[in-house]
């Protein structure tokens, strides 16, 4: 009920996978684990859509619409009547509260 994070844009085409293990290496949330013949998608709901796996998969077996989940930027874009996905995250700038200073 109060969980908006059950669905996301991550799509995995297992038959394309060549088991290079890159995705298991780059994913910061353990979404993929190493399998026998191909990577296994074990925790799809943990995906934060960072895009690392899709960008590093050599055979495009993974698709995800990556983007910074920055509410501030999206609300601003929506208020200005623009596409919410076009909202430029202002991290590093002097305004906006987006993006923490994680190392």
């Amino acid at each position: 009920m109060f969980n908006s994070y059950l669905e996301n844009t991550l799509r995995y085409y297992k038959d394309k996978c060549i088991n290079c293990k890159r995705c298991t290496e780059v994913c910061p949330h353990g979404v993929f684990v190493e399998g026998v013949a191909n990577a296994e998608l074990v925790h799809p709901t943990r995906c934060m859509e960072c895009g690392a796996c899709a960008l590093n998969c050599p055979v495009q077996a993974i698709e995800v619409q990556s983007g910074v989940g920055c509410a501030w930027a999206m609300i601003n874009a929506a208020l200005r009547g623009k596409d919410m996905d076009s909202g430029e995250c202002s991290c590093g700038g002097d305004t906006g509260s987006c993006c923490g200073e994680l190392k």
Partner: protein
Amino acid sequence: MVASKSPCCSCSCEETIYPCNCELHTVDSTITIANRFDHFLARWGIKRMAHRVEPGLYQIGSPCIDSPVFASANYTLSFDALRSALAGFDAYILVLDTKGINVWCAAGKGTFGTDELVHRIETTGLGNIVKHRKIIVPQLGAPGISALEVNHRSGFRIEYGPVRARDLHEYLRTGKATSEMRTVNFSIYDRIVLTPIELMHISLSAIVVAIILWFLAGIVASLAAIVAVLAGTVLFPVILPFIPTKDFSMKGLILGIIVAIPFSITFASSRGLPGWVAVLGAVTPLLIIPAVISYLALNFTGSTTFTSRTGVKKEIFKYVPVMAAMAIFGSVICIFLGLCRVLGRI
């Protein structure tokens, strides 16, 4: 940090294979008091764009042509975390120009990316300085880097190191990152260090609102505004995992109601007020405080390490109308009561 420039290939090893004419900076792994002060300012968001390191190639210790190469961002917190983790090692650090932004965020924006990495490899002449063809990139840089493309364009292989620089020793020793080292956890420490920035962003508007409320509705209302902001920007991040439900907005509403109750009681029990004023006075904080905290909570998603864009978007559609309605309704009552007060009706 001791930084000096020297012509590259001046490493202490005898084998210097190629001549080159690029600049090589030298650093050590000590974090000085000046560095700590800089980190402190960075955490508070003071002079946000001033915490930069010059992009380029750095040597730490006495590296030679076989020494490992690590990529980093030109944000002092990222760079200093790496160089202090490399204490006792001889290595090179390739600093990308991420415009003073940390690796993770810059990777999301693409500034810590394939193009910049390939460009740095070329301009620093890295290929002439080391014999091997491997660069260790922090795992959190992966959303910006296509390892395959970097390899095609520069000949360098990318190896993704652990998420946290402090695991580097172990990683270099075993040559493998455990799944623990590969996972981002948003620990209480991670959350606490984010709170100053959250607070700074809103401090000015909060002070203005608090002053206006002081005149309009008295000191308790002014205090309520300050408490709401502190709860939303400091308390919320700290106790995040302990608040029920998954949605940040919902968590914010829950925390907001708890924070609002004492104020509600205070208004309801103020003596000498007509009954209807007491009721309206009690309802106002229950409307405005949860709306404000919920909004701040929703915005905190941008600082966390696990919320997906799809999910945040859903939250916006689900909760922002509710927040807006609560805030508008609460403000109308608040202004009405304030006017009555100023006009001497109550």
